[in-house]
Each structure stands twice: as structure tokens, then as C-alpha cells.
């Protein structure tokens, strides 16, 4: 006897397939009622998976991002087990990706300001915060800008401001930060991932 795959599938379905559970004398009503209840209470959620690449560093680890189909919101981010680089693993930053989404209840969504010497945080809007930050940076930079050093050599630098980069910004944001910092003449530029 030679069983081909097609033949074996036929065999398998012939001996096992098509046997309804009800034909075995089993009562499926409790199971059906539970499934119906889940459906009625809208507890069965539809989601889709999208593969993407981690934006943090040049390693390029693969991620699988799950999104609720109804709300369009991200419900999970995990390492892509099928990705040749990370095979499902993620570093601490990558593993914390999900906390950057709006699912994280502790994530700040408003500008908080604490005045010099103050002890309380005040809620402010961006229209207030952005010009103020720009003004303070510009004033500090202008006040401390050095065109030449002690030897009279051209340096065009500002030693009064340092930029300490975040590990929660991606490559493109890092590039913008770097260009902005150099345009201001900053020389103390560092990144959390390096220290």
C-alpha cells in the first residue's frame, strides 16, 4: 500500500473528519452558550498583525505590532520570532516599546512646568512652553557663545548648554537633535545609550 499525501488526507478525513460532536452524544449547548455570551458582550476582539523594524538603533530588530481593528489602537508590540536579526528577542528599550503608546496610563500627555524654586507642577500648553524654551535656549546660547578660544582660533561654540539625548527617540529624531545641537555650537552632546 502506498499512501500519497492526497491519499493520506483522504484516509485521514475518511476515518476522522466529518464526525460531528453531536453524533457522539455530546451536548454542546454550554459551549455554544458561552461563545454566544462572549460575542454578545463584545468580548471577542479582532486584531491585525503588522511587522516592522525597531527604530532605535542600527541593529534593525524586527517587531510584530498588533492593532485592534475596531479602535485602530496598538494593543501589543513584541519581537518578531521570524526576523533573522533578533529572532524574537528585544533589548530593554525595544521591549519597552509598548509603554510609549497611549496604552501606557502613566505617559505624560500635557506639558508640566515647575517654576525655578517651585515645588508644584503646573499644567501649561504647548503655545506657552515652546516659545519659552526657545527663548531660554537662545538667550543662554547668545550670552555664552564663544567665537574664538583663548588662542584666538575660530571655534563658534557654546559650552553653557549640553544635550543629553534620550534612548526613547529614534534614529531620525537623533539626527535632528544632533544637527540642532551643532547649529547652536554645542560641544557637550551625549546619548543615554552610550553611557
Amino acid at each position, binding site marked *: *500500500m*502506498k*499512501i*500519497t*499525501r492526497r*491519499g*493520506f*488526507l*483522504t*484516509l*485521514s*478525513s*475518511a*476515518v*476522522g*473528519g*466529518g*464526525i*460531528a*460532536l*453531536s*453524533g*457522539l*452524544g*455530546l*451536548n*454542546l449547548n*454550554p*459551549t*455554544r*452558550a*458561552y*461563545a454566544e455570551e*462572549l*460575542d454578545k458582550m*463584545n*468580548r*471577542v*476582539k*479582532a*486584531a*491585525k*498583525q*503588522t*511587522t516592522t523594524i525597531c527604530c532605535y538603533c542600527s541593529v534593525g530588530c524586527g517587531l*510584530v505590532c*498588533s492593532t485592534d*481593528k475596531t479602535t485602530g489602537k496598538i494593543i501589543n508590540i*513584541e*519581537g*518578531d*520570532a*521570524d526576523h533573522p536579526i533578533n*529572532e*524574537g*528577542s528585544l533589548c530593554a528599550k525595544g521591549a519597552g516599546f509598548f509603554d510609549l503608546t497611549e496604552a501606557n496610563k502613566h505617559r505624560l500627555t500635557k506639558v508640566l512646568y515647575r517654576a525655578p524654586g517651585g515645588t508644584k507642577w503646573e499644567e501649561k500648553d504647548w503655545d506657552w512652553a515652546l516659545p519659552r524654551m526657545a527663548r531660554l535656549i537662545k538667550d543662554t546660547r547668545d550670552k555664552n557663545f564663544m567665537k574664538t578660544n583663548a588662542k584666538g582660533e575660530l571655534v563658534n561654540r557654546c559650552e553653557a548648554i549640553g544635550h543629553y539625548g534620550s534612548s526613547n527617540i529614534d534614529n531620525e529624531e537623533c539626527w535632528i537633535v544632533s544637527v540642532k545641537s551643532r547649529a547652536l555650537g554645542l560641544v557637550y552632546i551625549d546619548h543615554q545609550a552610550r553611557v
Partner: protein
Amino acid sequence: MTTTYESSEIKNIIARALEQNPENSEVIKAFAPIIARQRQLVEEISLKVPDCTLIDKNKLKAGVPVSSQMDLIEPEDPLKEVALSLAAAVKEGMPNISENIDKISDLIRDGKLNPFDFFKAPADGKGDAIGGLSKKLQVSPSNASFLMSLVSRVVLERRAKEIMAALGPFDWEKGYCPICGEFPSIALIEEEGGKRFLHCSSCGQDWRFTRICCPYCEKEERKEMEYFYVENKKQEAAFVCDQCKKYLVTLYRAGKVFARDMDISAISLIHMDVLMQNKGYEPMTACVWNVLS
């Protein structure tokens, strides 16, 4: 993949399944003695050592399962003994069909029904021979088929284990079983690493398969692979393919703390079968617990 367990653990696995999914207790309890007996028989039966020289690893790599390269069920296999042993377990779990099972057992015992005929007929291209055989012997075709499917699982699982041990590691990138060629009945996504393993309920084999591809139609989709899950019970999921309209019940990110039996897990998630079939999807394979009507 964590599907191995000591035979004594099967009771604990069933007890946990009942605790976690009490709404499916009738079905779990019905299959519990059968699965326990099957696992016991897999360990106990003696089969002729398979001639693995017949298996070409290059063919396997190309997607030709072992079942297409050698016979997996032989006439000299202890099918009669396995059938009679399982018949007792079926009667214990499913008393409503005891009478029919007794009748089939008597025919097997008296030599009037040779279980091998059930497997030989469809392989020879006689698809309706099962019905004919059952009619001739005046036994319920569905009950006889059910018992024979349980018998085939025992023989195939044992043979699959021996073949896998003899073959060693090999490449397999298909959505159907490398041993018997059947499609999976359930998938497991590991808690650590997130790898997806497919499980064949026909022979008990597990194999790894990519998460972005439908095992049935091999549609690869990096952006729209859909799944359903139960709110607050994210382990209970079912991946669906909108091209072939098939679903695959999936244990999502299941931990390794407790031993697991994938068939019991599949039976425990039978409400997912109900939900998916109500939504118009079909299972990738019809096994003894997912044909609902």
C-alpha cells in the same frame, strides 16, 4: 515547544483544562479517558521499526511529507489491540454511544472487522469503502470512523516519534505536517521568543512555522494577518486567513510553568471553534472535536 509529559501528568493537565474552561467541561470530560488511554498506548505498543532509508531528506525539504514516501500504517500493526483498548475508553467518556462501540468491538474481536481495512480502502482510492464496510457489517459509520481515527492517532504518533528520532533535524517550511501531511489543528506561540509551533492532531507532531504566513494557503502577509482573541484572556486566540477563509485556534504566549497536551488545549478552546465557525471560517483540518454540526 512543551508537549512532553510524564503519563501520570495527563490527569493534572485535564484537571487544569477543566478549571480554566469549565464551560467546555462536557467535551473535555468526554475526551479525557480517550486521550489518557491514547498516550498510554503510544508508550506501550510495539511496532515494526520503520525503514527510514526510504525517506529522502531532499524530498522533505521540498515539502513532500513522510506519508508520501513510506507506509505509515502496516497490516501487522497491533490495530486490533489498540482498537479494543480504545473502545473501552470511548465507552467511559461517551456512554451514549456505548452500544455502537460494543457492536464494533465484538466484530473486531470476532475477526469480522479488520481495522486495517479502514485504512487500506481510502488509500487505495476507495473513498466510499468506509461507508460500504460499515453498512455491510451493520455498524454506525460515524462511530466506526471515530474509533478508527483514534486508533490511527496512536499508531501514527508512535511511528512519527520513531521516524523523527531516526531522521534527526531536517528543514520543513510547510504548513502541513512533515509526517502525515495533515494540516494543523492548533498552534502555540511561545511565551519566550514568540515562535509559532503548529500541532498535528492526526499524528501528534509539532513543527515550527512562520507567523506571517497562512499554513493552509501559504498567503504571506506582513501587514494584515488577522486574528481574534478573547478580551482579558489573550491566550485564547484564533488566526484567520481572509484568502482561504480558514482559521487556526492558537494558544498565544502560553507559559512553560505547567506541562501541556496540545490536543487537550485544542479541546479546551472549542468555544473558539464555535466563534470562528459562526463567523464563517472553517478549520484547517477536520478533527474529531471541531466538526460542530
